[in-house]
């Protein structure tokens, strides 16, 4: 500033003394911070079993994205033991097992990138796994980085994505729901018998009639409780030891469609993944989970085990239950089911 004689000569201080103090402080802090802060890890290119090679830059970027979005729950080591995930049910997925619930492949196989990306973009409904708005460009990086946690990715190819057959029931919804009801409650003969694990949604008398009609013989329901689900074992660790080996696994209750939120299914009319969630999309999501099963949990892969038309019919039937959720009708149905438990068998 050289205004109007505002010039003031350098006054009494020894020049640079303040600067030297500052410099010394800065150096000391930089040394401490540099020594103690975790240096950013370096990566080798990751050679996947299917021949693809993930370049080191992608993994490094993925590591940053993982630290931003994932590590607080899924853990720095990918073991699902992040500090914010303690006590969370369902547990945050451990990536060290290479085991995913909604992989879009047969249970136990490694999921496709597309399925992982779908979960990342949409989140899992009813859990703290939200749609975290990871930018498109970073989604692939973090997916590839996940693959560094489990050796399976370098040893096995990813599973074949289970293709979605055309919906044979288009326009015949009521028929499909009726067929689905049979496929849901009856086991054997191309039916899935879902009510064996999930609960049944027919009062005792109707259930007995349906079983008799489908199986051609009377079934004694008097000593059974088809309306209470039992928790099942899963492979998902709640606790791990120092080496990252599971010491305790989570028990999972098969969802009651009138009560629980389904992880991959949203209410109709919401905006999911940037597009309105239609009844058709909801059915497709149901089909996908029924067809492929749920990895690590008791739900098996149904594709190939029952005819395609029954798979789709089940999607229609479950959708009809999902639509009832949280309505008075659902309450009334549950009351009827409970009452029929008390009533005398036919």
């Amino acid at each position, binding site marked *: 500033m050289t205004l109007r004689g505002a010039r003031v000569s350098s006054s009494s201080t020894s020049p640079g003394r303040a600067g030297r103090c*500052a410099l010394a402080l800065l150096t000391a802090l930089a040394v401490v911070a540099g020594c103690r802060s975790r240096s950013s890890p370096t990566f080798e290119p990751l050679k996947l079993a299917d021949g693809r090679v993930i370049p080191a830059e992608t993994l490094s970027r993925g590591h940053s994205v993982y*630290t931003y979005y994932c590590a607080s729950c899924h853990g*720095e080591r990918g073991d699902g033991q992040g500090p914010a995930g303690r006590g969370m049910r369902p547990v945050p997925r451990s990536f060290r097992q290479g085991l995913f619930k909604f992989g879009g492949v047969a249970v136990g196989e490694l999921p496709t990138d597309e399925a992982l990306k779908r979960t990342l973009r949409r989140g899992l409904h009813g859990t703290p796994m939200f749609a975290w708005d990871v930018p498109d460009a970073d989604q692939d990086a973090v997916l590839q980085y996940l693959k560094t946690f489990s050796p399976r990715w370098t040893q096995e190819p990813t599973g074949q994505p289970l293709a979605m057959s055309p919906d044979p029931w288009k326009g015949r919804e009521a028929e499909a729901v009726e067929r689905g009801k049979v496929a849901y409650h009856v086991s054997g003969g191309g039916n899935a018998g879902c009510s064996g694990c999930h609960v049944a949604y027919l009062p005792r008398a109707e259930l007995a009639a349906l079983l008799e009609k489908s199986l051609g013989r009377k079934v004694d329901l008097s000593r059974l409780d088809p309306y209470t689900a039992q928790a099942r074992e899963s492979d998902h660790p709640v606790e791990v030891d120092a080496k990252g080996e599971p010491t305790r696994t989570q028990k999972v209750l098969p969802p009651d469609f009138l009560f629980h939120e389904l992880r991959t299914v949203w209410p109709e009319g919401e905006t999911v993944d940037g597009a309105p969630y239609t009844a058709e999309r909801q059915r497709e999501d149901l089909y996908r989970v029924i067809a492929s099963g749920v990895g690590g949990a008791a739900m098996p892969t149904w594709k190939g085990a029952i005819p395609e038309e029954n798979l789709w019919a089940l999607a229609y039937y479950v959708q009809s239950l999902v639509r009832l959720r949280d309505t008075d009708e659902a309450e009334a149905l549950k009351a009827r089911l409970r009452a029929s438990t008390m009533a005398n068998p036919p």
Partner: protein
Amino acid sequence: MSLSSSDHKAVARRYLWSGLGFLAFGGLLALLIRWQWAFPGQPVPGLAWALPESHGALTPPTYTAVFTTHGLVMIFFAVTPLLFGALGHFVVPLAIGARGLAFPRLSSVGFWVYALGGALVLASFGLRLGPASAGWTGYPPLSTSVFTPGLGQTLVTVAVLCAGVSAFLYGLNFVVTVVRCRAPGMTWGRLPLTVWGLFFASVLNVLFVPVLAAATVLVLMDRLLGTQFFVAGAAAVGGGGDPLVYQHLFWLFGHPEVYILILPAWGMVGDFVAFFSRRPAHGYRLTAGAMGAVSALSGLVYAHHLFTSGMSPVLGRTFMVLTLLISLPAEVMFLNWLMTLWRGSVRLTSPMLAALATMSVFGLGGITGLALGAVATDVPLHGTLWVVGHFHLTMGAASFLGVFAGLYFWFPKMFGRALHEGLAKAHVLASAVLFLGVFGGQLAAGYAGQLRRLYDPYQYTYLRHLLPLNQWTTACAFLLGAVQGLFVVNLAWTLRRGRAADANPWRVGTLEWTCAPSPPPEGNFARPPVVLRGPHALSQPESIERLGRDWLGQAEDLPASPATATSPEAPVALTSGGAS
């Protein structure tokens, strides 16, 4: 002027430029936050170079970094340095008739420590995982390495420590200067109210900034050395730290800090309403005493920030009463300002307009704060934008307008050139109105339940209808940013070819205007002024009668006989102090 000069005016100028720089930087960060709330997840025009992955849209991690750094930068690197570093360093020695600060080298060192902190904040933007992102309060466990593992959080924590060191140093310097270096005759009862405000705030700096330093050092030890002072619960591997302890430490500093940010502005308002109503300040002693009472109480109210943190409800009630008590001295001060204005001959100069605007926004901020001081109303409002609107009105808008009141007032003395009055008035008025728009919008959104730090509030169904309100608020914010151009233009133009200012353009009697030219030379005064009266000797009948003007210098001898031919516009006797 040499960068190593420790003249208080040189240090003040260094603080002024860096403070204004950080003010602009923090303001731009605020506009990014506002953009995100108006157009969530959409690319910010012109930001694609910085965020190539998202084509310029704020991602959640960027967003957290932006709101964290906005708060930190504004409080520690913009407003405090402008109020104390720039205005305080410049005004305190001049207004008390001292040749300089008590410890000139300390003030220079303080600036360089502050500059180092600022450099660290800026540098943290270039690091992997970005700058700090645990919120400006840096609450653990968010600010521990478990949740913010990046080096940026560490460096910014160090930067806060640097800002704290510098605040402590100038606080100490001001206290000693005011106590020990006053000119002969400058009794405590003759100090300008600005000096009172700065003095009390400096006492608070000396008492409470070390608490922040302690909390920050403990966090750094948690981050770097593996201690667990604040790590507990889920994040603890063992041991028994407690994150709540940090909240106590932080707010034991943090609440006095909001008074540190407003007391100097209060002092200026008190002086300016007197100067520009051409009357002595009404209830000078009460006003100074009220500022003292607020300062004393400010250390006893901090736990109202913790009503919902799991603190004992009994403590909550205690702190509620103490908190609400603070409005009594504040009210005394406010009424004194109004009484000073009452039937005064008000001159709406730019500093006066800024002072009146400070009063208005601070009044509104104070009233909205009552709802947060009372436990019952705080519980639903806690963590909402109501809080944000409230504290931005008090320590954002009021401090900002206080800074500009002071800057417009002392600019001719600092640089010897007069700013353009019209531009300055337009800047002050437009800023004040838009501040009300921005923070009023935030209060409304907060009252409707919008939580303060949500990345995309509209993911919640109950907040979806607030999008138009937020867009309106954002429009006000961008306009507010744009009108700062008035100041920039004014500043640049004035510094290049502004009209030369005379020694006392405002026709007031305090020492810096009556005993020193604009700008004052090194050493400030040719001879130490001998003070004869208080700072607000305005419209005194005897001065009008004998000197023909309505103001009287604090160190000016009043001639015994009526003026012969002295006109009110006559140049000031620069060395009147001490003249017999």
